[in-house]
């Protein structure tokens, strides 16, 4: 992963906005993209609306053939593609599933996406796949394990990947790293990039009593190759404090837009995905969210903080 490592330089080395996003492999356009949903595929194929890129969940395209591949093949002719895995279980204590790595490699071979990303989480254990992203403890043992798994993935896929910060509802008492330091160290040791999920930042910070602005300030922006935006749902914990759920079933919340603005002020234009996986709205609603993100991305190109940082 030497090519990636050369990019992982300290932020003090000046780079222009155009060099900013972490090159996961082909570079996604620094614009807003949308998650590809079955419900929208036919409309997208027919109208080919201008969105920056499409993102798919890798596991939904691991069948041999049929309509999913037919539609994706057609859409791939028009749109840059991000492949986002949800099932590799990179944070798991068990070895990575070689068969799953093979399936990912085959999918990446088939569609030549501009980016591949996965989560700092685990989802498979003792032969069971849980279809959810479980949290890990942030300690030295976990760091070593995750670094090994990221390296193995990058070697198998023969390209650097992006690793996403998780949304979590509980913490481990034995964690002795902050999440941002933990991610920084993984990126530094493996040369992987990071996927900054701004909604997850809000969800996790509220759920653990952290300051989301401070979290962003501590986030290693030099490694960010993509941003995710989504809607959260709100509950209360047993003491009546807010408990946010990473539900992906509604519009991006105002406070998440504000965090996005703060992040892009530092990052400059960055590939940004609107995720909306449950209660999927009509395509125009999703496209409107993408346009709102594009407006903020465009403004970030000449944001004072960003310019100052780039020139520093």
């Amino acid at each position, binding site marked *: 992963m030497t090519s990636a490592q050369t990019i992982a330089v300290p932020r003090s080395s000046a780079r222009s906005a155009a060099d900013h996003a972490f090159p996961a492999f082909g570079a996604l356009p620094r614009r807003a993209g949308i998650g590809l949903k079955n419900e929208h595929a036919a409309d997208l194929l027919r109208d080919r609306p201008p969105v920056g890129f499409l993102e798919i969940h890798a596991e939904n395209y691991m069948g*041999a053939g049929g309509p999913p591949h037919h539609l994706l093949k057609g859409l791939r002719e028009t749109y840059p593609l991000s492949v986002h895995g949800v099932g590799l279980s990179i944070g798991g204590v068990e070895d990575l599933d070689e068969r799953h790595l093979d399936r990912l490699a085959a999918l990446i071979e088939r569609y030549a996406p501009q980016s591949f990303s996965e989560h700092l989480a685990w989802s498979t*254990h003792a032969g069971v796949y*849980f279809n959810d992203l479980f949290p890990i403890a942030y300690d030295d043992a976990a760091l070593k394990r995750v670094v090994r798994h990221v390296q193995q993935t990058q070697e198998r896929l023969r390209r650097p990947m992006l690793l996403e910060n998780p949304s979590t509802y509980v913490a481990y*008492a034995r964690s002795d790293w902050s999440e941002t330091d933990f991610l920084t160290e993984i990126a530094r040791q493996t040369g992987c990039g990071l996927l900054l999920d701004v909604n997850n930042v809000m969800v996790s910070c509220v759920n653990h009593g952290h300051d989301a602005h401070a979290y962003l300030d501590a986030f290693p922006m030099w490694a960010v190759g993509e941003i995710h935006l989504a809607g959260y749902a709100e509950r209360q*914990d047993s003491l009546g404090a807010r408990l946010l759920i990473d539900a992906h079933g509604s519009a991006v919340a105002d406070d998440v837009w504000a965090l996005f603005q703060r992040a892009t002020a530092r990052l400059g234009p960055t590939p940004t995905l609107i995720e909306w996986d449950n209660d999927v709205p009509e395509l125009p609603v999703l496209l409107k969210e993408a346009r709102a993100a594009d407006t903020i991305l465009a403004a970030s190109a000449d944001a004072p903080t960003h310019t100052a940082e780039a020139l520093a």
Partner: protein
Amino acid sequence: MSPLSAQDQFAHAALDPSAGAPDGLAAWNGSSVEQRFGVYRNNVVVSLVDALAAKFPVVQDLVGEAFFRDMARVYVMQQPPCSPRLADYGAGFAEFIEDFTPAAGVPCLPDVARLEALRLRAYHAADATPLDAHDFANVGAERLFDSRVALHASAGILTSRYAVVSVWAAHQGLGDLARVDQFAPEDALVARPDLDVVTTRLAAGCAVFLRALQDGATIGEAAARASTGEPSFDPAAAFGLLLSARIAIALHC
């Protein structure tokens, strides 16, 4: 605690509501860890029940949403997915339903689940271009009799003691469920020669004929097997089905 036992505990508790939250978890404000852990438990079960509901809509129609979700929840806890490729999940749902006593009042339910599972399998099966009449015309009748036919990977055959195709069709708005005699046996062919999954009711003996071809029998052998069990089997019609359903993809003379 070693990380292995921590994830062991977490994994176990995620699927067992009677297990408490795993040890070693914390909440910043001292609120209930059990309640927070419940978010994961809920995500796992609800997302998988939703996945089954999307895969088995006619099963759900037949028993109602509330019953279906209760039944699916039991299945998820007993037989959670073993792979992140969720397209495969639910392949054993029909067998589970067969043993699920509260569903015994709808005897056709397991076979309807089998039909929907075949349709899902067909949806994701490998693509192939079906042979057409020209491909067969070049082979003489004699040689055809001794030929083997490779069927499309999407082709699935179901033999049922129930009117499984009619029940399924009624739920697609293709007939009136009230007028279906559920106890009239029907066989089904499911295939996806192009992009659409097609469900066809098979004439007598055709299921045996197609299964024999899938097992590698020649056309002649397959027809003989079908005739043995079903005197009214019509070999010409069965051969015609290979063409009309567009499920033959290669001919080995």
